[in-house]
């Protein structure tokens, strides 16, 4: 899927929020590969992206749904104030017709109860790079990659939230790298009642990227 227009940014802006990269493109391709599933089966009315950064994914997903005559609330929450502003700007610059709502916050903390069981499409390209733990938890550009031990510190906090947020027909797309131990993440999610699969995998520079896709396991 094509990247939305980001011409409203200058290269300097990417000092303050994440510039779309191989992980972003892989996630876009995974969503586009699921176009029929999303438009015909899930038919979302509430989508949530955690960590939208530039807003490229939220805008691309909104555009995809609009092309398929869908209509959904598009929520996006980022810990970084510059990313939150950028996400709103990208939606506006691409004339997104679906309602895009941006919040600055830490994961879904402020939304989890209000949206419990109501999110149909949840998307997160998290900070997945293994780093010293003290680098985790900033609100600046470092929040785009600093994942702490095994790159799992932010991911591990989102897993129970994802399980609580997803609607019965909901789907959760999560970007991971090999160092995050994808199989272990899938087994944690299994314990939370979600079944996972690897939607796609790609080697990019020094990273082995995958998109994990979770749905509610049939009871």
């Amino acid at each position, binding site marked *: 899927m094509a990247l939305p227009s980001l011409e409203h940014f200058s290269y300097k802006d990417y000092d303050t929020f994440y510039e779309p990269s191989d992980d972003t493109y892989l996630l876009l391709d995974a969503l586009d590969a699921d176009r029929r599933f999303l438009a015909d089966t899930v038919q979302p009315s509430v989508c949530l992206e955690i960590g939208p950064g530039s807003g490229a994914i939220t805008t691309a997903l909104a555009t995809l749904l609009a092309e398929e005559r869908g209509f959904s609330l598009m929520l996006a929450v980022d810990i970084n104030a510059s990313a939150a502003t950028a996400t709103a700007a990208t939606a506006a610059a691409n004339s997104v017709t679906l309602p895009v709502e941006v919040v600055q*916050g*830490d994961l879904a903390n402020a939304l989890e109860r209000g949206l419990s069981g109501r999110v149909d499409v949840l998307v997160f390209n998290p900070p997945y790079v293994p780093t010293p733990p003290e680098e985790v938890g900033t609100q600046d550009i470092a929040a785009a990659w600093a994942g702490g031990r095994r790159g799992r510190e932010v991911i591990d906090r989102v897993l129970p939230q994802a399980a609580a947020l997803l609607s019965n027909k909901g789907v959760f797309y999560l970007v991971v790298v090999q160092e995050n131990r994808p199989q272990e993440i899938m087994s944690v999610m299994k314990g939370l009642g979600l079944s996972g699969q690897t939607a796609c995998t790609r080697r990019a520079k020094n990273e082995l990227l995958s998109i994990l896709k979770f749905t509610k396991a049939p009871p």
Partner: protein
Amino acid sequence: MRLLTHNVLRCAIKGVEEGYPLSIEASEVQMEESPFRPDFVKHIAPTLNWPALRQAVKQVGLPEDMLPEAVSDALLGDEAFLRALHRVLMDVHVVAGALVCPESGRRFPIAHGIPDMMIAEGECPRDDK
């Protein structure tokens, strides 16, 4: 921030039980008409916290009687009602102001339509452990 979003936000700081509904202190509100999507509104209506929505309507300066005291199945078939609800949920934008927690008084600023729900490290519930 649309009122639909306000309806799901809460204050998640340590020691707060519900932290909901957040009071809206609006210093700038914009109305922007958007295409009416009856199916969406019908689908969303039963999931809304109605008292919180009615309080929000009042706090952004809209007429209190814009919404009835409760939703019913009959109303969901009433186009005038669905249009009013669409307007409330989708067309009202709180551009600047603050959200205030009813329990703790904690304020969350709204600027350029984006509420800042970040809490300081010492306010996080998980710091209790």
